[in-house]
């Protein structure tokens, strides 16, 4: 990294800190919530992009990993009294009722457990390819959800968990987002990242270059699941309630929408798309409510928002196949060139 880039990066992180400090004090709860969602969706999007975009494994099991993270974090942070109130149908399983750890450790344990589940799933499933992998991971994610619906004494079954302590704030969510971006950037540019991309481009060629396919696929899957678990934990703590229905396939679909819109295989794209999608989810809420134009009232149609989202995904896939960024990444050089209004090619030729 050049010295200029280090200075610019530190400056922007500092700017982000100032903004978070300002936002947590001055913005209303609704806006803070949207900002939190933006950061959490960034974490979730990046974790899925590592598996689907960078390693080229079409996995549809993300909601399952998020569920593992969210439930673990919730159970580990809820107080003994809250647990008793929640589990009124059947008491919670003994060691869990007294277990209580700080939020940071709960998040990490949630992530690790999710990674462990991914390892168990990945070991058999990653031998499959393409469509079969997609449908097998989708199946595993549904199995996780069905198990969570039925383990009354651990997850409270279909009732879900309520009054989870709201620890997630802007510092937690943006901290997690920045750390995720940093770790992903280091990983993608390391030799492991290059191996992932090689597998994405051509498995047979990668294998003949001496890349251990299975090891790298499992590694990508497990790391992706870890961050999905952390993201799920943050989300559960932000929402305050979770239940198994939340983690249906449609949740995986919204994360998929983010990485397709941003560009499969671009971290920058994922970050931008995560912000666009999570703010649009809130901003388009007017579609579900009635609109008063003064002289005529258009009755709101609930569900129209989701139609817009599905149509958006179709349009992106059909007409902008590479998403917003393709596989391009953000770099300070490009930004500076943009301001100097010189095309990149000309500068290269000049050098």
């Amino acid at each position, binding site marked *: 990294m050049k010295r200029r880039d280090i200075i610019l990066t530190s400056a922007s992180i500092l700017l982000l800190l100032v903004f978070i400090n300002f936002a947590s004090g001055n913005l209303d709860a609704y806006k803070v919530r949207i900002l939190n969602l933006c950061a959490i969706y960034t974490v979730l999007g990046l974790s899925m992009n590592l598996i*689907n975009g960078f390693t*080229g494994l*079409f996995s549809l099991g993300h909601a399952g990993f998020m569920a593992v993270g969210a439930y673990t974090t919730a159970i580990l942070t809820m107080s003994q009294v809250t647990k008793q109130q929640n589990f009124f149908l059947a008491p919670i399983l003994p060691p869990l009722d007294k277990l209580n750890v700080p939020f940071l450790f709960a998040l990490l344990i949630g992530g690790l457990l999710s990674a462990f589940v991914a390892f168990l799933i990945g070991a*058999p*499933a990653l*031998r*499959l390819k*393409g*469509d*079969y992998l*997609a*449908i*097998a991971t*989708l*199946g*595993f994610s*549904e*199995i996780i959800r*069905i*198990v969570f*619906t*039925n383990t009354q004494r651990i997850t409270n079954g279909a009732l879900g968990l309520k009054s989870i302590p709201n620890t997630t704030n802007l510092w937690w969510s943006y901290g997690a987002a920045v750390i995720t971006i940093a770790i992903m950037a280091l990983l993608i540019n390391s030799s492991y990242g290059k191996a992932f991309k090689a597998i994405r481009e051509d498995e*047979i060629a990668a294998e003949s270059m001496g890349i251990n396919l299975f090891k790298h696929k499992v590694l990508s899957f497990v790391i992706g699941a870890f961050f999905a678990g952390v993201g799920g934990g943050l989300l559960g703590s932000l929402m305050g309630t979770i239940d198994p229905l939340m983690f249906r*396939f*449609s949740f995986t*679909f919204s994360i*998929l929408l983010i990485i*397709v819109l941003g560009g*499969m295989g671009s971290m920058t794209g994922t970050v931008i798309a995560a912000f666009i999608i999570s703010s649009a989810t809130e901003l388009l809420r007017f579609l579900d409510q009635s609109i008063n134009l003064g002289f005529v009232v258009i009755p709101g*149609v*609930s*569900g*129209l928002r*989701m*139609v817009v*989202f*599905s*149509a958006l*995904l*179709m349009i992106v*896939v*059909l007409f902008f*196949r590479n998403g917003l960024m393709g596989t391009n990444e953000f770099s300070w050089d490009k930004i500076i060139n943009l301001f100097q209004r010189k095309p990149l090619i000309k500068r290269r030729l000049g050098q």
Partner: protein
Amino acid sequence: MTFNLFLQHLTNGVSLGSLYALIAIGYTMVYGILRLINFAHGDIFMMAVYFSFFGVATFGMPWYVSFVVAIILTCFLGMLVERAAYKPLRESPKVNILVSAIGASFLLQNLAVVVFGGRPKAFPTVNLFQQVMTIGAVSLQRLTLIIPVASLTLLFGLLFLINNTKSGMAMRAVSKDHETARLMGVDVNRTITLTFGIGSALAAIGGIMWGMKFPQINPAMGIMPGLKCFIAAVIGGIGNITGAVLGGFILGVGEIMIVAMLPSLTGYRDAFAFILLIVILLFKPTGIMGEKISEKV
């Protein structure tokens, strides 16, 4: 468990299995020809149920007219989905087509919420099918027997179409190799559209019978049957129509029997299909009747 009770469960299982089979045929035909999981198939099935519901409930058609109209409309819907969502992407990477299929599925589902309303509705009853009759000690709705008979008749009709007609030959040619089929004078696009039409019509018939058997209908009703029927197609060997029917029966009978024999596992009923899928994928990835696909460099 008494023998009579066992028979009762078995007929229920076979009946459910033949519904799965009808829908699974659509998956397997599309996969055979395009190598694509048609994620929207479950939602096309849901649309068919709604079409026939509105035919009877809103337009006051007699049930048989409404069912025929629903089947024709669904047929066109299937072709429309193919034209709009899959045809433009035929040459692009597989992941894009898969994403497009998922997008089409969610679009149909959400459109159904907006247009038809999200609240569950009650499918109209048709006395002819829903009368309860008693054979020996087993009492069942007529429908329970009509479903397997109808499914098997349709299966044999379809097999005849594929093996003995010109369009069927075109389908088989396209499923082997698009390029060669085109050179041999087969209209590839027409054949693919026809495949979607037939698959959707079968899903529509399955959907109408499903609606009569499980009369509560809602826009999300296509998801689970859709996934399970795809699993049925994989179990039987995807691309193979007889295999899809066999897979449907295995899944239907297995599901009913598990709930009947081990009532404590009732909550895990939906997991059974997925566990079966994973076991099959690990030990015989090409399914029971599938052909082996070798890897080409």
